[in-house]
């Protein structure tokens, strides 16, 4: 089993998919030189410039053209460079891609992967740091996933490329170099969370890089004698309600943590679902961690003011457990 970085795991997924299926192609700015994060490196050499296609700085056209190409028999992988720039193609994604199949009465499909690197990346400031996954989870027609490990960035990207629905694929740009074992034979099933650590006292639900921080929190909590169960949701739509409800039924305590703004964040959806379906099983108050509703700064100390840390998760877990007794 190879050890790969999060970046190279995605590269392998594209390479394996493109070798298998000649209708898969990639399009975006600067892909020919390997993509801005090196996540397409070497692909031009193997697959040529038609299938690893550069694009003008025209986000609306990249998204719209890929959609047109998807409707007539190809499977484009769309690179948006930074999730922030994808906002220039919002009409194409939300009004066109997400709706076409339904509006046209099932005549069309848009099998496409829309890669949008998101998240904090040291001193990238307000227009290069956003995590907007909850926006996309709100749009019927889209599948929304947030891989947090090299294994998932392989298995989930393979699944996304093979999927006939449009998949908003949100990689975290803070972890391109994160390394881990990658089993190429491991298949990802959409909507299945991963229990990254089993525990019995408190459930911590998270995704993307925040799930990695939750693993650190679990380690710290275990040193204090608290057993935390870490659920990496991986996919926000669909999301694994069963896994969360089952875990909460066991622990009776819930912390939800994400890097994006807490207000209107997907954490609220999770907490609301638990309240509706399993409120009676809760033994302590729910804690929801997300960024304050402010903007990401350039200065590192200011940027850190918006960060959800593993320490905060430890404190939140302690609080929900303490208030219970």
């Amino acid at each position, binding site marked *: 089993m190879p050890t790969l970085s999060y970046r190279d795991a995605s590269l392998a997924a594209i390479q394996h998919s493109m070798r298998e299926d000649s209708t898969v192609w990639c399009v975006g700015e600067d892909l020919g030189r390997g993509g801005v994060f090196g996540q397409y490196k070497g692909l031009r050499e193997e697959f040529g410039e038609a299938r690893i296609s550069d694009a*003008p700085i025209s986000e609306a056209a990249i998204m719209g053209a890929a959609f047109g190409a998807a*409707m*007539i028999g190809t499977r484009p992988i769309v690179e948006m460079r930074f999730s922030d720039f994808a906002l220039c193609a919002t009409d194409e994604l939300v009004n066109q891609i997400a709706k076409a199949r*339904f509006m046209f*009465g099932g005549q069309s499909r848009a099998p496409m992967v829309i890669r949008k690197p998101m998240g904090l990346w040291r001193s990238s400031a307000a227009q290069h740091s956003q995590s907007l996954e909850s926006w996309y989870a709100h749009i019927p027609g889209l599948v929304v996933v947030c891989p947090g490990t090299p294994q998932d960035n392989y298995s989930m990207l393979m699944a996304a490329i093979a999927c006939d629905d449009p998949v908003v694929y949100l990689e975290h740009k803070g972890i391109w170099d994160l390394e881990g074992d990658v089993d190429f034979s491991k298949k990802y099933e959409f*909507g299945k969370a991963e229990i990254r650590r089993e525990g019995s006292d408190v459930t911590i639900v998270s995704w993307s890089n925040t799930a990695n921080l939750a693993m650190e929190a679990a380690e710290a909590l275990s040193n204090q004698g608290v057993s935390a169960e870490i659920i990496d949701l991986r996919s926000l739509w669909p999301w694994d309600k069963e896994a969360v409800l089952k875990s909460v039924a066991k622990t009776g305590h819930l912390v939800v943590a994400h890097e994006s703004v807490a207000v209107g964040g997907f954490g609220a959806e999770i907490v609301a679902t638990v309240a509706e379906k399993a409120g009676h099983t809760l033994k302590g108050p729910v804690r929801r961690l997300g960024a304050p509703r402010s903007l990401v700064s350039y200065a590192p100390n200011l940027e850190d003011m918006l960060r959800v840390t593993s320490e905060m998760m430890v404190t939140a877990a302690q609080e929900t457990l303490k208030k219970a007794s």
Partner: protein
Amino acid sequence: MTSAGHNFERGRSLLEMMERIRAFEEQACLAAERDQLVLGAIHPSIGQEAVAAGIMHNLKKEDILLSTHRGHGHTLAKGASSLAMMRELLGREGGCCGGKGGSMHIADFDVGMLGANGVVGANITIAAGAAHAIKLLGDNRIVVDIFGDGAINRGPFLEGMNWAVVFKLPILFVCEDNQYSATTRTASMTAGDGAATRAVSLGMRSTTVDGNDVEAIADTAADIAARLRAGGPPEFLHAKTYRRTGHTSFDPATYRPANEATEEEKRSDPIKRQRAILQTAGMSEADTQSLHQSAQKEMIDILKEAANTPFPADATAFNDVQDIGSPAVEAY
């Protein structure tokens, strides 16, 4: 005399298509106003039929078309069923889109019609992408993308056309210039010389044609289609016509001089012009009338049939959203 004398059959079939489009939209307007059966907005192309008929005459079934909110004519001329279209306008079962799209989202993938669009200008990048895929797949189809004069002031106009030129795609962009953007004269909100000049500035070959002369449009489109099929670069066609109705069927268009539309009809109604050309070339009055009558009859009949078709089953509100995380499964 135009080429009608030389190619009488083509001229007759162009007239026939224009008659069908006109009759379809007249019935659609009646269905909206008289019968109150069309619940959403419809945007008639009455007076603009020559563009649809002239261009589509040169497309094959497998060629690709993308259209706009004012797209009934394009869709019908591309080969869609008038009954399925009328059912769609009425939101009924068996409509082109199962009643889920309505007039503004009509599509018929079986005849290469990849959709009207409710967002002005949005079809331009999508059409470029369809042409991009055709090139990637290495097949021989061509794409026609039609948009209005108002759409040239949206960003996707630049992005989509630049894209098509850069990637040398087999696509014809058509600006169907009816001189109005909703209730505004487009010229009053457009800098420079407008559509064709902008296309030329991107290095595109651009042709301007009288948008009410169906023979001229068909000739021009035939030439362009031949060049595209031979591997030529994308082209632009600016067809100047006139929007005879209001923006929607309910818009009385009081913002323009009262006689403007009637003057325009007298001067250059494309159907009257084509009838005159064909009659000069020997078409009998009886034949002219029979084309008109049979188009009328077709559309009266399909409206009746559409009105007698049930609405779609309630459960289809949850179909065809997505396979993964489908609301049919996930609904709370």
